[in-house]
């Protein structure tokens, strides 16, 4: 706190006609900001403060109204919602078909468990694709771009796919672990592989490999594949953790949206 300015200095500060040197004026001004007593002693013209307050209020009333703040930031993710909607609807429709088919033909191997690993892949591929994101070049140059943003978008996909899988699994009697763990493992694998090949190609490659290697043989032989037997959930959990760890180490590869995304 500075020492209080003399009454004479205060009077000259308030008087628009008096000549006050700049140093004194600044010191009085900074002192007044902190000292209510001196502000009270400062006598400015008769109704100056009232006139200023009235003028400020008039200007505020004349100006545009303040922008209303939205409580929920749906706008931020609106693009994602619109882009993902068709793919998520398709995923849900396929899962619903699997549940219906299972009800009609109970002797089939569990279709929900067979489809669970590939269910999130279309959504993840769309969420991190320069073709589907019109502003990718703008986003690629921002500090937030990278693994964190990809994970955020992946989480949006999983938020829809995981409950759907849980519901479909409970309807057809698939254990929750065997419906969800392969789904998470394949999502982590897509991200880990996507660091090298691009997320879109990784999703396509993994999806095709799973369908050709596991789904087709299982449907043709009408037998539940070995990798989806009830005892394998521990292995799936380990695989999920390992792949997630691998994906976390590849964060540097997602800083620039590379040409193969």
């Amino acid at each position, binding site marked *: 706190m500075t020492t209080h300015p003399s009454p004479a200095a205060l009077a000259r500060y308030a008087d628009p006609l008096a000549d006050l040197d700049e140093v004194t004026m600044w010191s009085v001004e900074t002192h007044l900001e902190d000292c209510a007593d001196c502000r009270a002693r400062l006598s400015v013209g008769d109704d100056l403060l009232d006139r200023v307050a009235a003028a400020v209020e008039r200007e505020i009333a004349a100006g545009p109204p303040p922008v209303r703040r939205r409580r929920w930031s749906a*706008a931020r993710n*609106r693009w994602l919602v619109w882009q993902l909607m068709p793919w998520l609807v398709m995923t849900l429709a396929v899962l619903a078909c699997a549940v219906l088919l299972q009800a009609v033909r109970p002797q089939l191997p569990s279709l929900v468990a067979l489809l669970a690993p590939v269910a999130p892949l279309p959504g993840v591929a769309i969420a991190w694709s320069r073709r589907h994101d019109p502003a990718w070049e703008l986003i690629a*140059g*921002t*500090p937030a771009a990278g693994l964190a943003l990809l994970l955020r978008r992946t989480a949006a996909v999983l938020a829809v796919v995981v409950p759907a899988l849980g519901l479909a699994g409970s309807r057809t009697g698939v254990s929750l672990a065997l419906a969800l763990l392969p789904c998470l493992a394949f999502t982590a694998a897509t991200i880990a592989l996507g660091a090298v090949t691009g997320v879109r190609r990784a999703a396509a490659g993994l999806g095709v490999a799973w369908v050709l290697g596991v789904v087709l043989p299982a449907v043709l032989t009408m037998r539940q594949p070995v990798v989806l037997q009830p005892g394998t959930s521990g292995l799936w959990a380990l695989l999920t953790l390992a792949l997630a760890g691998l994906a976390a180490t590849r964060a540097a590869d997602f800083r620039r949206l590379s040409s193969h995304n």
Partner: protein
Amino acid sequence: MRTVSAAETAPTTHPWAVDAEGLRVRAGRHLAVDGLDLTLGLGVHGLLGPNGAGKTTLMRALATVVKPAGGRLTLLGEPADGRADLRRVRRGIGYLPQQFGFYPRFTVREFVEYMAWLKEMPKAAVPGATQRAIDRVGLTAKADARMKTLSGGMLRRAGIAQAIVNDPALLLLDEPTVGLDPEQRLDFRELLRDIGVDSCVLVSTHLVEDVVAACTDVVLINEGRLVHHGTPDDLAAQGGAGDAGDSPAERGYSALLRRHRAAGAATPEAGR
């Protein structure tokens, strides 16, 4: 008016905002920037060059969108090549791409706010900074209109608003004057001069007159190499009466390019 933080007034410890040495950048398989040496400090720099000279590729490399294929690149005192952590550098960069995509259902305000959020600005500063950026480009009346209802010039200005929303120390504008009418171009030049006082602005353009009017510095590149770096007056001094062009600067531009092409033709291995 806004409060200036201590970080903004701290002295910089790097001599150049952009420091490239032997920079090489690929566009697809083609080496679009080939051994470019460039140092840029404060001020407005105009980037000139014929079509296919590598302007856009250079801009993308400086915006850290694409990874340089070789050479050394330092932006705002931090390495920006290879596997460097780009987070800190990117917080100080504003970038307007040549073709900038946008989300058609966003309003201008939502778009600029979203970009401010992606640029990791403090949450409390975002609404104020957004309004200020929109005011500076003259889109205040259209702030709550949807992006798909805007004209080409307004879109361009919305793009400039998102580039300046974080008060970047390095502002990269690729063809910002496309679609602006003459009056808006004058306002834009004024904005450039204003920003160039305390940051490094690089404006890529085809219009020599824009560069002469608004820039403190001209960078001329051709086939991925630096041809000329000097003041607009230097550029004007290069041209003779026999060169193509309607103004001294245009004559200087064509004279420099002609000389560079002639030198490249004389020693073909140098042009590769």
